[in-house]
């Protein structure tokens, strides 16, 4: 059995499969490829790929600290592979983040739009900087092969100590700040995990995981290339990890006892089982195993222990990243198989790059040879003319690329069709505002109002010369009539002067088509014949239809106008209201010095004491509000019924 080739084959198969899923994710979105929703927006990809991935990459800063700062020279053979693993780990984190983010093209925003109060801001910056530092730390190794870059390499080698220090510093910062992310969720995260010292726990467990990751990576790569494992050096790491795990355990236990949560560990809920399992796998069992000197030198125990710590700590990250929140949100989330394969695929690609680096650069003291690169085994021919062009470098190139292509195609085959053909975002119907002089705007009836003093606004518009233009997309809506209703009621239905907002903006969160074709064609409606609007000889479509303004000359469209063709889209209710209200408020707040908060969210969206809803009592008694849980933008599957 050719271990290298088969390992690579499996990795190529998985990455091809994952690539197909990733393609679907970018074309059709997260609804097709994940089980996430607005209530559980962080799933496996954040828990495992990002949080776990960062933790798995901790080996880099741990080993550089041991080697460069503590000057333990005997760990030299582990430094380069560990730094490489860390670098690839971070690149993998960045890629999985891109896949998980809803709007991945906005990822650069963090560089320009600063929010220094957010832990995520710190995490983001640390990841960016540390990835760069790791790149600079590792790049002398591949540069060795290119003599013309010797000057760059010498420069990097000269200032290596700076990078090492920076690397350790940045890692310390953000391994812990990943924990700080969850400090703002005391009510969401289950109490066994939630603690104010989460950052410290994250940092200590990252050190343990880093040590075990170096162990595992060394054992695995030596197994693949059939080399003798570095058991003696690894045994030292295993002995060191006992102390780290012990510290972690003590810190965690003391915190739990001080916060009076000890009884929760044994309260029999599934979270308590999860907690016990996690603690056993990640800490207790490996610590006991490695504490015995005889065991820590045994390579089988090294395998078992390192895998346990890795699985345990990554499980801890998954728990905190989502699993331990399910109790509070009441949601049920199990990762879809596509999510699992994306995670596996990212790991596979990283592993392939790792193997490539090992085979082509001096990551190890002795570079392994590609066992298939023997002449006369598999000659390569040009595919069109069948001309022979010499022996291939890597003879498995043909096999592996074929494996990738086939598994990609299988991935495309298995993508669930029902999700691909989903009807998109659920259309939440808008309910009209109620009230008289003061309107109570509550489009989705979730009992969260905006009080809108209609009469006061009319009076204001009459007294003040308000003029502004709102633009969205390619369209512009001008408001400059001082005392006309049209300032806000910009477009009314035929025979009406002030149609209500909800009549066209009839969907809460999505664009809607406000042109009612069937009404125009119906006998009971406009009673028009097809040829009244459509040119007879052509296919009946929007293209061949007359413009609305032919029959309704008074219409002034603020509709989306594209290539001279109207598309009758009304913005979603929320967008329309925000556009109109906020634009005007923002313009006015600049003019009025005494009302700086006019355009702030809380000016309109007020929280009222529970039960009162801010309604006058007489009105509240008269109106029976149907109180529903707030509606989310759920993706509907075809087999489900549309919620009207």
């Amino acid at each position, binding site marked *: 059995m050719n271990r290298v080739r088969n390992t690579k084959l499996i990795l190529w198969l998985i990455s091809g499969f994952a690539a197909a899923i990733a393609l679907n994710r970018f074309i059709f979105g997260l609804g097709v490829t994940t089980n996430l929703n607005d209530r559980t927006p962080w799933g496996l990809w954040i828990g495992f790929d990002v949080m776990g991935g960062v933790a798995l990459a901790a080996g880099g800063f741990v080993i550089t600290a041991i080697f460069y700062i503590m000057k333990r020279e005997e760990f030299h053979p582990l430094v380069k592979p560990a730094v490489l693993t860390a670098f690839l780990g971070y690149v993998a984190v960045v890629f999985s983040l891109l896949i998980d983010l809803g709007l991945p093209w906005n990822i650069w925003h963090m560089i320009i739009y600063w929010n220094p109060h957010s832990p995520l801001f710190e995490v983001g910056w640390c990841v960016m900087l540390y990835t760069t530092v790791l790149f600079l730390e590792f790049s002398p190794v591949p540069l060795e092969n290119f003599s013309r870059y010797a000057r760059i390499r010498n420069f990097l080698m000269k200032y290596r100590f700076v990078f090492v220090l920076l690397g350790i510093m940045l890692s310390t910062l953000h391994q812990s700040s990943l924990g700080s992310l969850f400090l703002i969720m005391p009510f969401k995260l289950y109490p066994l995990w939630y603690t104010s010292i989460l950052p410290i726990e994250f940092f200590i467990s990252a050190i343990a995981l880093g040590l075990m990751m170096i162990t595992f990576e060394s054992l695995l790569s030596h197994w693949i290339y059939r080399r003798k494992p570095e058991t003696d050096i690894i045994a030292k790491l295993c002995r060191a990890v006992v102390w780290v795990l012990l510290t972690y355990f003590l810190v965690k236990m003391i915190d739990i006892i001080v916060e009076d949560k000890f009884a929760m560990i044994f309260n029999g809920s599934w979270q308590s089982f999860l907690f016990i399992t996690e603690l056993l796998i990640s800490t207790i069992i490996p610590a006991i195993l490695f504490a015995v000197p005889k065991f820590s030198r045994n390579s089988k125990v090294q395998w078992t222990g390192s895998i346990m710590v890795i699985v345990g700590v990554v499980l801890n990250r998954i728990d905190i990243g989502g699993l331990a929140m399910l109790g509070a949100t009441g949601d049920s989330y199990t990762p879809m198989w596509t999510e699992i394969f994306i995670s596996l695929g990212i790991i596979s690609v990283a592993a392939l790059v790792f193997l490539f680096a090992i085979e082509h650069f001096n990551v190890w003291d002795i570079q392994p040879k590609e066992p298939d690169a023997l002449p*006369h085994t598999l000659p390569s021919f040009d595919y*069109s003319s069948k*001309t022979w*062009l010499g022996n291939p470098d890597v003879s498995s*190139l043909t096999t592996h690329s074929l494996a990738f292509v*086939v598994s990609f*195609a299988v991935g*495309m085959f298995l993508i669930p*069709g029902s999700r691909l053909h989903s009807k998109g975002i659920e259309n939440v119907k808008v309910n009209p505002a109620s009230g008289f002089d003061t309107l109570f705007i509550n489009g989705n009836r979730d009992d969260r109002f905006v009080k809108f003093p209609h009469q006061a606004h009319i009076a204001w518009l009459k007294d003040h010369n308000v003029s502004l233009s709102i633009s969205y997309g390619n369209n512009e809506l001008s408001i400059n009539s001082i005392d006309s209703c049209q300032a806000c009621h910009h477009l009314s239905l035929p025979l009406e002067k002030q149609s209500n907002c909800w009549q066209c903006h009839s969907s809460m969160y999505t664009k809607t088509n406000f042109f009612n074709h069937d009404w125009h064609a119906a006998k009971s409606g406009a009673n028009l014949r097809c040829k009244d609007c459509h040119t007879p000889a052509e296919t009946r479509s929007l293209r061949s239809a007359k413009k609305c303004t032919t029959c309704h000359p008074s219409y002034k469209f603020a509709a989306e106008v594209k290539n001279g063709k109207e598309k009758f889209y009304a913005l979603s209710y929320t967008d329309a209201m925000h556009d109109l209200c906020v634009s005007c408020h923002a313009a006015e707040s600049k003019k009025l010095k005494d009302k700086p908060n006019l355009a702030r969210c809380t000016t309109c969206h007020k929280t009222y004491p529970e039960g009162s809803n801010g309604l006058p009592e007489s009105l509240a008694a008269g109106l029976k509000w149907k109180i529903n849980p707030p509606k989310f933008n759920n993706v509907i599957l075809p087999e489900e019924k549309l919620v009207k």
Partner: protein
Amino acid sequence: METLLNFARGPLFRLCFALMVLGLIRILFLDVWAALKAFRKTDDKRMPWKLIFSRTWEWIFPFKRLKNNFQLYSVISILFHIGLIIVPIFLFAHIQLWKESVGISWISLSYSWAFWLTTGTIIFAVSMFIGRLVIKQTKLLSRKQDYLWLLLLLIPFVTGFVCANLTVSPATYHFFMLVHMLSGELIFVLIPFSKIAHCVLAPLSQVISVLAWKFPPMTDDDICTTLNKKGAKV
């Protein structure tokens, strides 16, 4: 039938289309890779680029070659290729499917263009098939797959033509549609692994044939080994 149609239109199409696109990218990559390697190995780095370009051009737009024998056959072959490439890509119905599923669309053929191009392609394919059978020289050069490919390419064109132009009962329509899709998908799968791969490799073939004559130094033994004549003198 509906289920089968949906299966052929959904998962099976995705599988076959992915195989075709990635398969073509793969062989193109492997070809370029091999060419680059061969180039790196040779001592003689001169390449007759002008000649390569003019020859490639001549093969892709073979109007110059019309001076040769079998002028009719060559003209038919060119016309056949035009319909074969344009119709599947620019047919309105096909674009509509893309638009509905992925949301992308591009310019489409008008009905009459589509009709005449399809009819033309069918006629040219049949006449090429007959030509291969009748003309002595082409018959000698033809392999089995050359005939089979023409027949296979005919299936989706004929069935598609029937579906688009004839008024038939729904059951018949569905049957023809199924055959149309399945044969199209079979073609997709076969493209990267057969002679049809020339659709992406054609621009490279002249470069390859130039490179193939540039043997790296000391390769005579290797050549003999590959030809199963170890020890023979070159």
